[in-house]
């Protein structure tokens, strides 16, 4: 299945893209998407613990199961205000 990935702030810079896609096996979860991204971009790994994730604009856990066409967002620690 194909998942759309949005990345923000420092994670966008690390991935060198605001938006990308990953191909995953059926039954994969967000942690698998993260692992696929980190495989091609190892600098991502050290940010795993501080990153929150959303699926289709709702905050979810890394164990959240994905479906073809889902859009996930990688959210580093925030700095608004």
């Amino acid at each position, binding site marked *: 299945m194909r998942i759309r990935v*949005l990345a*923000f*702030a*420092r994670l*966008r810079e690390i991935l060198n893209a605001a938006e990308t896609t990953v191909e995953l096996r059926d039954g994969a979860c967000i942690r698998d998407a993260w692992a696929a991204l980190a495989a091609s971009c190892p600098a991502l790994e050290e940010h795993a613990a501080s990153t*929150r994730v*959303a699926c289709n*604009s*709702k*905050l979810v856990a890394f164990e959240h199961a994905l479906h073809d066409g889902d859009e996930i*967002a990688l*959210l*580093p*620690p*925030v*700095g*608004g*205000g």
Partner: protein
Amino acid sequence: MFAVVREPIDPRTFDDPIRPGDGGAVRFFGVVRSRADDGRAVHGLSYEAFEPLAIAEFERIAGEARERFGDVALAIVHRIGEIGVGEVSVAVVASAAHRDAAFDACRYAIDELKRRAPIWKKERYADGSARWRENESVS
């Protein structure tokens, strides 16, 4: 009103209405400082947001404020993009029957926005360097 905007927020004309019949309204404007916490001269800030989730978070914060402080009307507007020193990055307006609830709700809203709204800023310094600045950690 809950919004993420790209155009300047002018504190003199920011016109979110004071709710008819209310007895007090508190307006907070967050402004880009000329100096970073470490004293370095700041040229400006670059903000970005995950807009659908940011607006949903503003609405959630307003709902929590009503649970805590009673019947309070809140408006939260955050600007994104390049923002210069002295310009407004965020505006929060709280209107309520009495001032205590308006002050409390305004403070709650800006504090919670900083803690958890999916918005990010990069501090750009006069010497040309830049770095991402994080607020206090989120549980």
